[in-house]
């Protein structure tokens, strides 16, 4: 029984650290409506940069900021390929992601970098507080996620943030209102991938190593988290009749990410093979994305139409 509880606690901490990545995916996919495939690469980039910096003697906290900067550069590359060189966003992201595989190995000098025996943010905080590692990860994750929700809520309420949201909503209108939409996309992908790399760095430090494969499937995991969060909040809205604000949406991403990890932990406890998890994740996302289409095909459903 305690092993199950421990697994659950671990799942929640993992969910929170990965939720930072999901917030990044939320910015690019949802807010900006850009299918940015850079994510898998920029996640590993964050982990790699942070790990290598720590081994070079850089403060583990400072290494997080350097990782964020690296992720931001990766996002900018994709955005420039897309906006200035007119490469379709999907392909632009895939190209950057592919290139990052080589870059990440270059950064680490090998396909992975263990952090054995060096201090990370987790071990530093453990030495200060003398709490358990798993508890520290949990608290650290909560603090960072809460701060990010706060900062992102503020940012997307500003003039600039509103213009980015509007770009994802109706690019045509936004240009007619004098906004450089290319620049909005660049800023969006810059921020999004910065968060993704931060998540990679946090996950790397908490698990004690960075690996060139660590970001594999991150996009789909991010989307799964967003979708699970949406389902939960749709239910809450219909049950408690409140207005879904941008802050709720940010929060839903984090809750979705935690629930995703809990679902994974549960199916593993139930005896699912860990190599089957990617199949499960892909199925969850595909099913959730197909849901609106399937619903609209049911004869009983009421189609909400905007009257002309």
């Amino acid at each position, binding site marked *: 029984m305690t092993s199950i509880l421990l697994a659950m606690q671990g799942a929640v901490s993992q969910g929170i650290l990965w939720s930072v990545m999901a917030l990044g995916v939320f910015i690019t996919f949802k807010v900006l409506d850009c299918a940015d495939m850079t994510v898998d690469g920029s996640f590993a980039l964050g982990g790699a940069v942070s790990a290598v910096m720590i081994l070079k003697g850089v403060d583990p906290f400072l290494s997080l900021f350097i990782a964020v900067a690296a992720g931001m550069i990766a996002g900018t590359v994709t955005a420039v390929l897309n906006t200035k060189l007119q490469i379709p966003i999907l392909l632009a992201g895939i190209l950057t992601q592919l290139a990052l595989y080589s870059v990440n190995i270059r950064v680490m000098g090998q396909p992975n970098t263990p952090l054995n025996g060096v201090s990370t943010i987790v071990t530093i905080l453990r030495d200060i507080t003398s709490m358990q590692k798993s508890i520290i990860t949990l608290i650290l994750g909560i603090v960072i996620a809460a701060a990010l929700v706060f900062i992102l809520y503020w940012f997307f*309420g*500003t*003039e600039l943030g509103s213009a980015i*949201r509007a770009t994802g909503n109706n690019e045509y209108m936004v240009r007619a209102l004098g906004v450089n939409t290319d620049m909005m996309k660049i800023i969006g992908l810059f921020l999004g991938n910065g968060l993704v790399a931060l998540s990679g760095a946090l996950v790397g430090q908490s698990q004690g190593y960075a690996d060139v494969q660590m970001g594999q499937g991150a996009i789909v995991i991010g989307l799964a988290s967003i979708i699970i969060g949406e389902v939960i909040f749709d239910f809450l809205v219909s049950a408690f009749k409140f207005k879904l604000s941008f802050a709720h949406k940010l929060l839903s991403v984090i809750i979705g990410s935690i629930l995703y990890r809990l679902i994974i932990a549960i199916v593993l406890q139930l005896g699912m093979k860990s190599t089957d998890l990617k199949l499960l994740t892909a199925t969850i996302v595909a099913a959730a994305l197909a849901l609106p289409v399937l619903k609209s095909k049911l004869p009983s459903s009421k189609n909400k139409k905007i009257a002309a």
Partner: protein
Amino acid sequence: MLKVENVYKTFNAGTINEKKAIQGLNLHLEPGDFVTVIGGNGAGKSTTLNLVAGVFLADRGKITLDGQDITKQPEYVRAKLLGRVFQDPMLGTAADMEIEENLAMAYRRGKRRGLSWGVTNNERELYFERLKMLDLGLENRMNSKVGLLSGGQRQALTLLMATLQKPKLLLLDEHTAALDPKTAARVLELTEEIVTKDSLTTLMITHNMKDAIHYGNRLIMMHEGKVIYDVKGEEKKQLHVSDLLKKFEECGGETSDRMLLA
């Protein structure tokens, strides 16, 4: 105010889909001109507006607005001079954002967008007053998502957004064509109200000849990428739909069903 000088625009040049949309267009607008634009399908009316707005650049020729050469300016830069309403009600507004957020985006047309709050309380008062003028009850729904509005409400809102910061030139591309007749009439009324109140220089494309005669102080007819007829003042007021149809046929235009609807 607006000067379009000898402008040419060909789409898909050198391919089998080549289309010479604008062929030596000249057009001068005086400040305060309210010009209605008519012409058959494919005459180049929308292309003209899009060239002025910078959706794409002219192949040749020069466009000046308010003394500025805007021929090569990107769309988002010249947007500070222009107000635009499109045919498709979906194009002019952001559906997933609130009415006040849409207005706030429009209120900052041509201004730098920084890190101050996206909508301020002072602005809200202004938006409330302006929305009230529309008389559609939108002033009490400022926090509703625009996606919940009808097409007519969205066009009225877009019109308000286009004129919230007084534009040097207002571009209207069949902005009532997608609306039912009653709503279309109401949006046209509003258009005239706003244009008159602020004495806005306006280019309004319409496929309704009656409207083209009734509204504005000047009327131009386009055909094959050129202005083929240009009347103003008294002469315009005396026009009848039949005159326009005759004019249209003289130039070899096929009188489409759509134009006869007028």
